[in-house]
């Protein structure tokens, strides 16, 4: 059942939920918008896409996996004992104000971190305790292409509740059981009137219609495998890239990390921090060999992972949600849509296709 929340009551509703959850929401921070724990002094910004999505709430840019310490083994003076204290940082969390594309990014994380042979307990514990309240997009940016990769401006994958902004408030719809439970809390939601629901539906339909027509990407895994050794193609596509990795750090689906032990004297932490395939060190091997020596190989991997290897492993799900951040924030405006479209349209020389 759809509910309704007045604009004026939003702050109060969040304050009520705040007694039970740690609330993260997009706020103005300097010249950017980022997800931060919501406090009185912060300015909530839900009128546009955040500069960086909510991914770091469930997958922190840097987290302590464990604390360790060394001490002398008194029974055996030649040896040291190690004490290890694993970290557990999960608390009930409400992610408020993500966009449907951002929330869908958590679907990709779930695939990688909770549904594979090895489960990532750190991520899983946080995901378990998180409720995701998303806001449907009623106006799409030039960089938005969620509809190309299976999403939509009003998509609900990865969200527990979906809000649609209408004239004076929001139409509030539960998506999951977690969402249902959440909506039973707080005193400010009322039942939505039929014309409010209709208004929301119309706004969402208009947003969906405003996006450019979606190409069919079903052939992409095969096409990208075919292009694997075509370095001429990848060199041209990556020519303007500066290999900075900003695209991956802002991406709601990129989830690669590095692990380092940071030891100070006899104490230390094992840290997990974001890493990215656009950086040379990512694949640097101890022998000195680097299988991805240049940016062309690295861009191939980024696009390949999203549109080929990941779908291959996860029932066709593309690991890109079309949020457009990698386009918008790329220092050289490299457009992943254009790379994928070029890959799709690239016809291989006849003899190579015959060689199968």
């Amino acid at each position, binding site marked *: 059942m759809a509910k309704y929340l007045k604009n004026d009551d939003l702050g109060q509703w969040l304050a009520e939920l705040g007694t039970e959850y740690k609330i993260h929401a997009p706020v103005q921070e*300097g010249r950017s918008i980022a997800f931060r724990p919501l406090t009185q002094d912060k300015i909530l910004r839900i009128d546009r896409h955040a500069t960086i999505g909510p991914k770091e709430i469930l997958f922190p840019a840097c987290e302590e996996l464990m604390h360790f310490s060394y001490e002398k083994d008194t029974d055996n003076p030649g040896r040291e004992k190690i004490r290890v204290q694993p970290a557990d940082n999960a608390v009930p969390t409400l992610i408020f104000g993500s966009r449907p594309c951002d929330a869908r990014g958590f679907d990709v994380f779930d695939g990688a971190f909770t549904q594979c042979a090895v489960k990532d307990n750190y991520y899983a514990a946080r995901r378990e305790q998180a409720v995701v309240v998303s806001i449907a997009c009623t106006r799409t940016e030039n960089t938005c292409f969620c509809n190309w990769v299976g999403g939509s401006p009003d998509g609900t994958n990865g969200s527990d509740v979906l809000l649609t902004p209408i004239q004076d408030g929001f139409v509030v719809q539960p998506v999951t059981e977690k969402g249902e439970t959440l909506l039973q809390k707080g005193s400010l939601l009322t039942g939505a009137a039929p014309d409010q629901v209709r208004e929301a539906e119309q706004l969402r339909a208009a947003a969906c219609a405003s996006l450019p027509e979606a190409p069919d990407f079903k052939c992409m895994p095969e096409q990208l495998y075919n292009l694997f050794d075509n370095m001429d193609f990848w060199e041209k596509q990556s020519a303007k890239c*500066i290999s*900075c990795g900003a695209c991956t*750090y802002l991406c709601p689906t990129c989830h690669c990390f590095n692990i*380092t032990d940071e030891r100070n004297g006899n104490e230390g932490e094992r840290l997990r*921090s974001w890493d990215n395939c656009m950086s040379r060190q990512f694949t640097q091997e101890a022998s000195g060999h680097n299988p991805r020596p240049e940016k062309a190989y690295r861009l191939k991997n980024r696009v390949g992972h999203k549109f080929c290897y990941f779908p291959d492993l996860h029932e066709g799900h593309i690991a890109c949600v079309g949020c457009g951040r990698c*386009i918008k924030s790329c*220092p*050289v*405006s490299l457009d992943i849509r254009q790379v994928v479209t070029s890959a799709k349209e690239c016809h291989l020389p006849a003899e190579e296709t015959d060689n199968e």
Partner: protein
Amino acid sequence: MMLDQLKETIKTALPELDFVMGWTTGYDPLHATPLYMYEPDDVDQLIWGPLNVHNLAVHLPALRHKKVGIVVKGCDSRSVVELLQENLIDRENVVIFGAPCNGVVDMTKIRKAVPDAHFARSVETADNSLTITTDKDTHTLSLAEVMADKCTRCRFPNAVEADHFVGEKRIPAVETDPYADLESFESQGFAERRDFWMAEMDRCIRCYACRNACPLCVCRDHCVAQSREPHWVSQRDGVRDKFMFQVIHAIHMAGRCTECGECERACPMDIPVLLLKRKLGNVIHDLFDYDAGLDAEARPPLLAFKLEEDSIKEKDW
């Protein structure tokens, strides 16, 4: 028209070159993107004007084994000169195409003036203004209002080194850098300045776009910030760790940085990191009376050893 002349000049030179780098319209009418011109047809896509924000010199060191052309604004040409000075590129392998520059926009200022800039449908540029039409309305901005700060104090709008210069040379905005921005920042107390940097750096995501966009960040792939063996810099993401990297970057740039502003422009989190480099540029200027990237034969002061510096009279102390 100047642009047509520039295109002709590039087309004439192209057969001798692997490609020429310039700019074209990007994913929307407000964003230009680097253009690689391999064939004469590619040259037709070239644009020139206030949206050509990128400094293409960043690509040159990796293209050392090729013979390439590059279109430069005045400030970009200083990066090319600095690369030549440091022996990171070979003069005979680079063909420089210059044209008079009237300044480029700062996207951050545009987004401030037109919060709906990401919905731009069309953009028209005139000599002194920019008209942006979005899905909802039309905004006309004066170029002065949204121009990159570096352009308001530009001393070298015409390439300082070029094989082909097209168009009439422009008169520079100023003769010496006023460093007024720095002065006003430094007029604040220590605590205020520290708080400013802690707040700004807090949202740094350690992506290193600032580093990779810098044409003179030469260690790039072997950067101390990411080296694992030895492990110089912590991977923690506290604000001190992030600031530490900015300080490293700024120090490594002292006397080499041309203040092209790419580090700041590239930052996805809009952190004003150029200010740190301006500080060091100012110090180098005062100490050594030196400006980076003006003379291909000169040696940056911190890359040279002199028993006694002209401006540092140790023996008189």
